């Protein structure tokens, strides 16, 4: 067991090396949300008001987009990275090669989890720094807000990892970019990452509510938005308990799917 953890850490270091050397991955999953937050903040500046009924509390664009960008980042670095890398590694024989050694399988997954946790933490810290330092966003001071933040963050990351691994089974190395990036873009648009969720038609809100990204974004809004903005949510509440439940359910479902569908070899080769 200890050796599995040690090997898992070793895999984490190796995964980080490979990740950091893959320029496209670094750009599209790590830097992208940071770039988007900066762009939106510069373009819209302080001209964005909240809901007309809430004119009392103004926020600038950076604060408006911060929760969405953190949420998108969580899903990009966990789900997207995982789905794409596992599908590619299955097709190019990496998984088969690992399977041909006495490496405990759990070390492989620990390495992936390590990679995702470290990259998404780093990404989120950079997002918070950019928002605070460059655009003067007031970050919450209450301990309870940061507790919510951590719960949503880690449930989101864990769910993203296991769902990503499970999702990798339906893609091949050739199709994986389209199969992963397409649905991810749609999900980001309908889950209130790029638009204010309250501006999305309610039937689309219902669709988005099935998927975890909407709940991650809502949880993050509860942390970074003025408390009075809760009235703009679907339920008129932040629904923190419900958010945790939905994310936990997705995480469990992802874990079960991942365990039941994971394959070390390309389809049709056993």
């Amino acid at each position, binding site marked *: 067991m200890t050796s599995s953890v040690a090997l898992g850490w070793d895999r984490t270091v190796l995964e980080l090396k490979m990740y950091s050397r893959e320029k496209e991955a670094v750009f599209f999953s790590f830097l992208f949300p940071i770039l988007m937050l900066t762009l939106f903040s510069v373009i819209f500046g302080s001209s964005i008001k909240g809901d007309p009924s809430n004119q009392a509390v103004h926020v600038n664009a950076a604060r408006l987009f911060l929760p969405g960008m953190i949420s998108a980042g969580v899903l990009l670095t966990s789900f997207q990275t995982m789905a794409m890398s596992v599908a590619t590694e299955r097709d190019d024989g990496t998984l*088969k*090669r690992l*399977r*041909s050694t006495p*490496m405990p399988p759990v070390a492989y997954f620990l390495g992936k989890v390590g990679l995702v946790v470290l990259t998404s933490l780093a990404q989120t810290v950079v997002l918070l720094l950019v928002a605070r330092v460059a655009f003067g966003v007031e970050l919450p001071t209450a301990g309870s807000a940061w507790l919510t933040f951590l719960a949503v963050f880690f449930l989101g990351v864990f769910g993203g990892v296991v769902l990503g691994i499970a999702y990798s089974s339906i893609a091949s190395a050739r199709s994986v970019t389209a199969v992963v990036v397409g649905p991810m873009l749609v999900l980001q648009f309908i889950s209130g990452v790029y638009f204010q969720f309250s501006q999305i038609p309610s039937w689309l809100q219902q669709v988005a509510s099935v998927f975890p990204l909407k709940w991650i974004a809502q949880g993050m809004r509860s942390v970074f938005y003025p408390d009075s903005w809760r009235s703009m949510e679907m339920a008129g509440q932040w629904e923190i308990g419900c958010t945790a439940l939905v994310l936990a359910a997705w995480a469990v479902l992802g874990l079960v799917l991942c365990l039941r569908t994971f394959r070390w070899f390309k389809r049709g080769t056993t």
Partner: protein
Amino acid sequence: MDDAITIRGLRKRYGDKQAVDGLDLDIQVGEVFAFLGPNGAGKTTTVEILEGFRTRDDGDVRVLGTDPGKANLAWRERIGIVLQTSGGLDLLTPREALASTAKVFAHPLPVDQVIADVGLQEKADNRISGLSGGQRRRLDVALGIIGRPEVLFLDEPTTGFDPEARREFWGLIEQLKGQGTTILLTTHYLDEAEHLADRVGVIAAGKLLALDTPANLGGRDTQEATVTWEEAGTRHTVRTNEPTAEVGRLSQRLAGEVPGLLVTRPSLEDTYLALIAPHLAADETAGERAA
């Protein structure tokens, strides 16, 4: 127990194609054994069953006394596998790839030693994406041997090599053999089998057609030899069971050195082609799948 690998009545079917059809084979500890056969003959399927990567339909298989279908990680400690392709390493250096692989074995060889053994010292800290095909294949072998395997599987190790790279690679395999490693290799190249293997098995349509040393395969050693020479401006050819006596008579008659003298036996290639000829037509359609 002197057998590293035993196979009894091995069968594997894909759809309506019998890829392996009742194979029996024993490979001794320390032996270098080569599987020869056309594409789709069942070589790779057999090897992958021995590696524990494929299920079998019937038969008994033991590698180091263990059924590969039920093998655990302790068994994997003793096995080395050089895959046909090993992708996914492009972003690392050979040293990084070898060091991380070494960590999963209990008693690995020193990374520097393995790098030197396969002749990759000068490329050890370059990205793997920049290696040539031959260098990459040597890295594959390095990854296969770093755990000090007792049995090494080599699947078509020199496909795509230039002749010089192939010679170097043979040297590496001979070195491993010298250390007592049991090696099972599959190859398309007859000269490779002849050079490296203690015994070769010719396989086609899932059946073992012949099993012998390269020199004796298919009765090569006892078949008629061909003696040719130059005399009075023309080339003469005699087929004989007694080439030595024939050369003696020639030497006497021509008073010394016989011009252009050649004594040949059927090459391994001739023997191999004669063996598989009846199976080639039947194999062609079903060939692609197991290849």
